[in-house]
């Protein structure tokens, strides 16, 4: 009905539109005439070169405001949906009957964050991530450089790694518990496994995709093999290494949480799973959100470190990262 009416209104509007369609010719002709008189317009276009800070802020705001507004809207929509779904206990195959609402979760979170026990969970998870990830970084980058540069090392090590690589870190949980003397070390090991392969493979790829003329140039300039590895190959592979670190950090969190849920004592993963067992529903959501935020902070840290260590990338990569 309404569509029909709208179509009519378009049809109705068409004749009046069509009539001026001939008429605009003189109207448009005015525009070019205005251009010679556009001399006063020139200062207006030149003006942006000399902007006061306030003007510049205004411009930034005007340009960025729609983006920010949309970002805010997307978060508001998510929380709004969550609120409505839990308040009215929506059931449409998915059941929101037992899911705590945002208000309840927020209140409980405020209580929990003052609690020393929860801080222990967070600190332990962070310690496990840092340890596992640090070991994975050192080993992954070192082996990646060696495998990438020396064919003999590649033939020796890579086939074995290719067999182990497709095994997800979570599948390592039982054997890891058997292998390592404490639960703590086995969880760190699983975190390590998760982070190691992305870092290794990206480092290898970084070495392989580096321009060979750079290695030649360094050798002509008298670089020893060690200097070549540390000051040329490592630096040249750095952009790929950081891709590996970012991916590795993500997988490390997945592995850590899974390991904590299965075998853990303490840790945010354990906390989240325990909340489910103890029917503390809002703690499940708090655990999830905390894991999300910690993951975000960790990958943000890696990106920041990357920008600090690779200032040359800022000049070249800008156009792509808009």
């Amino acid at each position, binding site marked *: 009905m309404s569509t029909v009416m709208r179509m009519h209104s378009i049809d109705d509007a068409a004749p009046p539109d069509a009539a001026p369609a001939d008429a605009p010719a003189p109207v448009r002709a005015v525009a070019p005439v205005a251009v010679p008189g556009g001399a006063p317009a020139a200062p207006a276009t030149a003006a942006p070169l000399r902007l006061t800070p306030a003007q510049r802020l205004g411009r930034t705001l005007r340009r960025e405001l729609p983006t920010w507004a949309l970002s805010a809207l997307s978060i508001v929509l998510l929380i709004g949906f969550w609120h409505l779904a839990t308040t009215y206990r929506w059931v449409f195959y998915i059941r929101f009957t037992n899911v705590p609402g945002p208000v309840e979760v927020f209140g409980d979170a405020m209580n929990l964050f003052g609690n020393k026990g929860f801080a222990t969970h967070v600190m332990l998870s962070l310690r496990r991530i840092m340890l596992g990830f640090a070991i994975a970084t050192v080993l992954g980058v070192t082996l990646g450089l060696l495998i990438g540069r020396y064919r003999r090392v590649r033939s020796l090590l890579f086939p074995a790694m290719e067999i182990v690589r497709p095994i997800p870190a979570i599948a390592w949980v039982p054997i890891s518990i058997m292998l390592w003397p404490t639960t703590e070390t086995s969880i760190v090991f699983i975190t390590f496994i998760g982070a190691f392969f992305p870092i290794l493979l990206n480092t290898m790829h970084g070495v392989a995709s580096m321009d060979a003329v750079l290695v030649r140039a*360094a050798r*002509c*300039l*008298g670089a*020893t093999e060690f200097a070549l590895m540390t000051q040329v190959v490592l630096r040249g592979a750095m952009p790929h290494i950081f891709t590996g670190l970012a991916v590795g950090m993500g997988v490390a969190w997945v592995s850590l949480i899974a390991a904590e849920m299965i075998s853990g004592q303490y840790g945010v993963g354990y906390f989240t799973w325990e909340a489910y067992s103890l029917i503390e529903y809002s703690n499940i959501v708090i655990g999830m959100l905390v894991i999300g935020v910690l993951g975000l902070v960790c990958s943000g840290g890696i990106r920041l470190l990357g920008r600090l260590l690779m200032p040359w990338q800022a000049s070249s990569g800008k156009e792509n990262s808009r």
Partner: protein
Amino acid sequence: MNASTVQTRSATGHIDIRDVNIRFTQNGVPFDAVKNVSLDVKPGEFVSIVGPSGCGKSTLLNIVAGFLRADEGTVTVDGRAVTAPGADRGVVFQQYSLFPWLSVRQNVEFGLKMQGVSRSTREVKARTLLGLAGLLSFENHYPDQLSGGMKQRVGIVRALATSPQVMLMDEPFGALDSQTRVVMQEILTNMWQQLQLSVLFITHDIEEAIFLSDKIYVMTARPGRIKAEIPVPLPRPRTPDMTSSPTFLALHRQLKALIREESLAAMGGELKEGGLAGHDWHVGAEGVGAML
């Protein structure tokens, strides 16, 4: 300023290539890339090698640089046999080869750093050289922020920083537009004039070779042999107006004719091997005939 004064400019930097042969294998078939090549670059001399593409001139340079080994023959620099790359031979590549993670000055300092030269000495030397090349105001830029001509100037300065006895330049201006090229040639000839240095320069640009060189070797099409050794009697220092002098033009004609023979020979070879004949739906038999 004649060749003899050039020779006395420095005592070191003598490149001697004697009876060098190199064979490569392509698709399982071995072929001679360079055959019985002997040439020498005297101390302080600027020597160019010109020839049709694929004649092995870059291969020859790679041997002097130490990237490749000759199958037969000897290559020495100041009497020492070349076995590996080293800072006594500065190399400028056709592709831009600056380290993108280092600033312009850090790039220039790289070779000195490898020699363990102290930070302050490195800085002084790098800045002096960058000043000579008109790049001092860009010392803190990253390579990606520079134009092609500037990158190549930094490349030259970087190769000079370790004070090599010889410079090996493999079509260093090949990737630049023609205007930039001409300016780069002037900069290079001026820098060479100020530094006591032997240069082995690979190019396919005849004017570039004449403008820069004391002596030009013309190589044959594959297998690469020395077809002619042509001294350039133009006075030093070289200036752009010399490119229209009768001597320059006569040399240009002579070299052009020599290289044309070789280019045609190379294409003739391809024709016989079916390289071009395979494309005759595109060029046409008369077309190829006309090209020849």
